[in-house]
């Protein structure tokens, strides 16, 4: 076992790992941060997306020891300091961008990464960026709408509801 230290959601934390411990396992089992979900074993679904040093990555496809010392942000670290929902989170609630909530942590983390890179994406850019995040519930309509709304763009033209 090797102790791995990282800065997760602004706090320095550590947990014991094996070589094979995934970042997703480190967060979920090591730190009890179960907001990061695991939905597949082929690195396709994106339920596990977190930010490592500011970049969206699939935490199920990284060994914890390979990112020792990194700055990690998870869904648990996306709210504002006063506990209120962050901009992307709030837009997801406002526009019904989630149903069962299982894909949601990954969707929010990917969407936040998109807006950091591209503050005013087009609809096509949002859809393209979310290629690695599968949602079975929403048909994506309200997710795309929420991301566009979070970017501050006018969404009045998007079909009803």
């Amino acid at each position, binding site marked *: 076992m090797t102790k791995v230290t990282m800065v997760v959601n602004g706090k320095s934390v550590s947990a014991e790992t094996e070589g094979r411990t995934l970042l997703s396992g480190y967060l979920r089992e090591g730190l009890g941060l179960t907001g990061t979900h695991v939905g597949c*074993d082929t690195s*396709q679904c*994106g339920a596990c997306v977190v930010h490592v040093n500011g970049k969206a*990555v699939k935490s199920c496809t*990284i060994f914890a020891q390979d990112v020792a010392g990194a700055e990690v942000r998870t869904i648990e670290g996306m709210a504002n300091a006063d506990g209120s929902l962050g901009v992307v989170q709030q837009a997801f609630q406002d526009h019904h961008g989630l149903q069962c909530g299982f894909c949601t942590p990954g969707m929010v983390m990917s969407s936040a990464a998109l807006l950091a890179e591209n503050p005013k994406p087009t609809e096509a850019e949002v859809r393209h*960026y979310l290629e690695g995040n599968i949602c079975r519930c929403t048909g994506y309509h309200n997710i795309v709408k929420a991301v566009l709304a979070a970017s501050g763009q006018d969404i009045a033209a998007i079909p009803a509801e």
Partner: protein
Amino acid sequence: MYDFEFVKPSTIAEATKALAGDGAQALSGGQTLLPTMKQRLAAPGTLVSLNGIAEMKGVCKGDGGLHIGAATPHAVVAKEAAAHYPALAALANGIGDPAVRNRGTLGGSVANNDPAACYPSAVLASGATVVTNKRKIAADDYFQGMFTTALEEGEFITEIAFPIPQKAAYVKFNQPASRFALTGVFVAKYADGVRVAVTGASNDGVFRWKEAEAALSKDFSAAALSGLTVDSSDFIHDLHGTPAYRGNLVKVLTARAVAAA
């Protein structure tokens, strides 16, 4: 997944030593290797992460054209190669999804040589040079059939040098599930001729479509391709397409790549 010892050298020399050991395997972005290990299809005793080696990262212009460190993630190539070799940058930007592009690397992709991967077509079409910790390998000698390369035990890619073409484009037709290339065609026009590399189609992995190269070297236009036929007899047959369908895609995508170049 079986357990292993994890090491993370910070120089090529250290990595060479670590990878000389029995049961040692290189780890780059892990975007291919981790899913394989989860299925218990790979069981390295030691995993040698190449992600801490600064000399294997980055994009810069040099004698051989555009030199890209093997440990450079796709997202960095997409950004930093854009000014020098836009077709290559666009290819990198079309691999997988953003999270995959933030981890997966040029070296890992080219070492793996998946028959549906994108990069091998760029390496082959560019006549690039694969630089390893031991030697330099010409692209035409490097790819040896699906998942097979010229790399030997303990050898790993440190960088790839891409001669910069006058014009080039990569057109990829997505496999609907994995979004790898169901078929992808990279066309590159150099002063001394055109090279066309096809991925996703053949049971032999990436290959050069020589007839198209000859035709396009004479006349770099989509029309030049119209009389050509593609021999699809040894093409991949799977859930997503027949050999004949892939043969059609090779033609259609080559024409589109020429038009886009």
